[in-house]
């Protein structure tokens, strides 16, 4: 028994230590210039980690301003997209035949490249506001909303329709109406599926926020800064923003996982 416990513990320690060690090796290779030789590049295009960190610490205010701009777009788009996506799923689950056809259309929106979508939406939202910063913001949020809608509607639809065996019959024997059935059975059943959808759409919301910034009129946001700094050959600053973008991505995903653990644990 204790031998088994030991091996289990050793395995758990391994699964933390090994990746960390690998990361350590990678960063060392980067800092010592080995990585530059491998990628056949110089420390100008690929600056040392210490240099990137220095730049972040020197420009914290400006970087944070861009981080908030990108986060606002990603989070609001994620929120609107998820809510609309869920409503579409509810509609599709209530009118099965008409709805599932509509769902096919919505999910095919997902395959439209953001690069094609972004300029179109920016065109359409030109009249929203006379201020460039406001209308760029609206355009970016709409883009993220559309991109996030699909995964939520498809997954929520599954959650609303793939019910445990006999649960619908049980509801019928209770004499529950449509609304009660929705509230007591379908809605709770769809919650794990909502998290499945969010696991896809949280990273996607950030990526589409960054890419939509490329096309926006008003120059702000982490994605736009990466591009602008490369255009003026400020590679170290661009790397600082890349690092920040990665941190945003990881942090948002970690928050999601934590929220999922809390919510789903309560249900059990």
């Amino acid at each position, binding site marked *: 028994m204790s031998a088994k416990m030991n091996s289990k513990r050793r395995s758990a320690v391994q699964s933390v230590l090994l*990746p960390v060690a690998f990361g350590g090796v990678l960063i060392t290779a980067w800092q010592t210039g080995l990585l530059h030789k491998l990628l056949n590049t110089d420390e100008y295009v690929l600056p040392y980690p210490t240099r990137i960190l220095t730049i972040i610490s020197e420009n914290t205010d400006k970087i944070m301003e861009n981080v908030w701009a990108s986060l606002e777009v990603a989070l609001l788009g994620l929120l609107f997209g998820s809510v609309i996506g869920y409503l579409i799923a509810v509609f599709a689950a209530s009118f099965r035949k008409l709805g599932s056809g*509509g769902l*096919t259309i919505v999910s095919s929106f997902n395959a439209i490249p953001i690069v*094609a979508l972004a300029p179109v939406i920016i065109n359409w939202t030109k009249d929203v506001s006379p201020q460039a910063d406001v209308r760029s913001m609206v355009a970016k949020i709409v883009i993220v909303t559309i991109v996030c809608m699909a995964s939520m509607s498809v997954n929520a639809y599954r959650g609303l329709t793939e019910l445990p065996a006999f649960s619908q019959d049980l509801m019928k024997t209770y004499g529950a109406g449509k609304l009660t059935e929705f509230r007591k059975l379908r809605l709770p059943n769809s919650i794990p599926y909502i998290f499945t959808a969010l696991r896809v759409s949280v990273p996607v919301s950030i990526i589409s926020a960054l*890419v939509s910034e490329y096309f926006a009129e008003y120059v702000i946001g982490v994605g736009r800064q990466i591009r602008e700094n490369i255009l003026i050959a400020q590679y170290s600053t*661009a790397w600082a923003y890349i690092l920040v*973008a990665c941190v945003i991505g990881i942090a948002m995903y970690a928050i999601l996982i934590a929220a999922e653990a809390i919510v789903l644990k309560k249900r059990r």
Partner: protein
Amino acid sequence: MKLVRKITNSKLFFTFIWIAALIIVWEIFAYQVEQTKRTPENVLPHLSGVVDSITSDKKINGSQTAFQMVMENAGATLSRAAIGYVIGIALGFILALIMSLSGIVEKVVFPYLMLIQIIPILGMAPIINAITKDIAVSRIVIAAILTFYPVAANTLAGFKAVRRESHELMYSYSASKFQLYTKMMIPSCIPYFFTGLKISAPMAITASILVDTLQGGLGLGCLLSQSLKGAMTRYVFWDIVFFSAIIGILSFYFIGIIEKLLCPYKKLEQKGR
């Protein structure tokens, strides 16, 4: 009568209803825009105008029609996307195989696979372009990176989904590791493998077009930004938007068709129904 009912009951029929509804809404807005804007084709052109621009034989840059131009640029972009896609698939599959064979490699690599999934790779496109110094190469690299992780993660999930009983059966046959993989593990992970392919096909195309916009030269994305800046008729922009949307959607279904052709289990499933 029976046929009519069969048609109106099918899912495809309702999809067509939705497409028709979308087209009607588009046209209504296009009409509205036509009344109020000085250059309606910049905001929302009639669909007939877009079709016209594709079929017309008017040369727009002296030597090519709009259609030829879009096709030539699409060839440059999509061929790179395809190369990157194939490289990404190969690497993803091999990595999944190695991870399945060696627990240590899985432990080292898998967290990083998750990490690639949640960091915005597309945001790194400009820097990859700067490192590779060649736009064609960077298209391939980014398409490969984006293809790589869905394929690797899904294939690994496929290896893990093999039932314990199957393993025990192979053990009782005293199958070698090679036989275990060629006879059981690889065939049973194929559906998962194709899920990975379906997810990543539109991503590879998006990435490739995005990289185009970073630099001049031949490519859909480059043509897109040129026509947005007004270097040529705005209809080229709409042609590209529709073309890339259709290609993105078709790529998803195309992989599904390949899966159906290659995999007997799909036919079996359908017969079973």
